[in-house]
């Protein structure tokens, strides 16, 4: 593997890892808070927004997503768009499913693994 290829794939994996970290942290934060409709019924829309914005996992997750946005711009500047965009999208979806199973203890059954594989392949074909 040439150093250029290694460079490009490291950038792709880094961007995907940031996206997975962001989405899993946001999901963990929201699971911790519970149904937002219940919170809104109890303390109003601003109470719900406040509960979300003061949840540490949500805030760190959102920062990961913001950082992911800039890392993506960097990755796209060194890699071919037609490689980087589908690769990042696919790896993010697969990483999300694995991380959701390990860290969020989601019951990822056969049906969801199949959906993850289909989504990963589908976005690889569409994200260019």
């Amino acid at each position, binding site marked *: 593997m040439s150093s250029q290829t290694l460079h490009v794939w490291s950038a792709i994996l880094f961007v995907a890892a940031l996206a997975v970290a962001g989405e899993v942290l*946001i999901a963990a934060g929201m699971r911790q808070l519970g149904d937002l409709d219940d919170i809104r019924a109890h303390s109003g829309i601003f109470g719900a927004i406040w509960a979300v914005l003061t949840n540490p996992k949500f805030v760190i997750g959102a920062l990961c997503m913001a950082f992911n946005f800039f890392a993506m711009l960097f990755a796209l500047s060194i890699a071919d768009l037609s490689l980087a965009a589908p690769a990042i999208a696919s790896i993010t979806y697969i990483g999300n499913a694995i991380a959701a199973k390990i860290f969020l203890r989601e*019951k990822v059954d056969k049906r969801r693994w199949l*959906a993850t594989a289909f989504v990963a392949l589908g976005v690889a074909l569409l994200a260019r």
Partner: protein
Amino acid sequence: MKNKLTPSQYAVLIAIMLTASVGDSLLSRGMGQVGQVDIHHLGLLWHALFNPFVDAGIVLLIGFFACYTAALSWADLTFVMPATAFGYVVIALLGRFWLHEQLSLSRWAGIGLIVCAVGFVAGGPSRTEHHELDQMDAGVGR
């Protein structure tokens, strides 16, 4: 695991499918009108805020993030994921029927795969319940 979604929860999932893709399209159309922004022309970003396409795109993307966050408060990440992927299908279909672009066979295959994925997940439960963990989390977090 819970299976029943209310109509308003279905509406949130449909909003996730539509807002991200339409928001991205509006933003890229608006930025196309504004021109290329680089480190020497950061002033253009201020200018971009007065472009109606950019404004509409930002509003839709904020809406997307709100809907996505709300959905994760009552559904699993692996349940919501295919809905976010459906945005790619919406963009491809907008290109086909609104901009009259030709879609290659591989793009049609991609659309088919994501539609199937949504079908697989939609037929199953939306949320993994693990009460003891949730209660532990709630005790620490609030």
